[in-house]
């Protein structure tokens, strides 16, 4: 596609439910990143992929968070048993190796 696409754009869920956030990167981009943006916290690194593998998962806040990428393209970030502190904007970005990141518009997650 023309840009990085994220879905849904908004997600409201109840505490304790699982959610899946999807990212469609720019075609051909081998690197894919997930960040979390919340007030006062800036952009918090979660995980990044090179192809289908994740060299660095150190940013995932807890074992409730997981991510996968298939076919070197689409990625899914899953949050299990959501908590109110998970409320934030989840941003996905993609890039060619060593090049600038292109960001999606994000998924606004609200946990009630």
């Amino acid at each position, binding site marked *: 596609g023309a840009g990085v696409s994220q879905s849904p754009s908004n997600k409201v869920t109840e505490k304790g439910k699982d959610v899946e956030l999807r990212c469609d990167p720019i075609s051909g981009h081998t690197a894919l*990143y997930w960040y979390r943006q919340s007030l*006062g*916290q800036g*952009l918090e690194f979660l995980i990044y992929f090179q192809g289908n593998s994740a060299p660095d998962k150190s940013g995932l806040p807890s074992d409730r968070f997981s991510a996968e990428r298939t076919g070197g393209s689409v990625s899914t970030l899953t949050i299990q048993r959501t908590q109110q502190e998970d409320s934030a904007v989840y941003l996905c970005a993609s*890039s060619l190796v060593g090049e600038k*990141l292109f*960001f999606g518009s994000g998924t606004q997650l609200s946990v009630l």
Partner: protein
Amino acid sequence: AQSVTQLDSQVPVFEEAPVELRCNYSSSVSVYLFWYVQYPNQGLQLLLKYLSGSTLVKGINGFEAEFNKSQTSFHLRKPSVHISDTAEYFCAVRRYNTDKLIFGTGTRLQVFP
């Protein structure tokens, strides 16, 4: 591990005044440095980057930044700001041998008429 510190969470400034947004980093190895900007209701986009060579780098919209290795800083400057520069600015760092990009907490630049 590398980290990025943006000392100012908010910078208010009048139109046509100069501005400097501060960024300091820490890393045990050499790094690449970036500034990204997020305009209201828009996604982040690259403003400028330092990879190697001249320590003064120029970016879009009249912004420039200077890499200072001894002070581990990469401050962003513009000699005369415009209302349209109102945005959130993020400094970021990446180590030479990795694609992991770490961002600072951001600086909100508010330009007043």
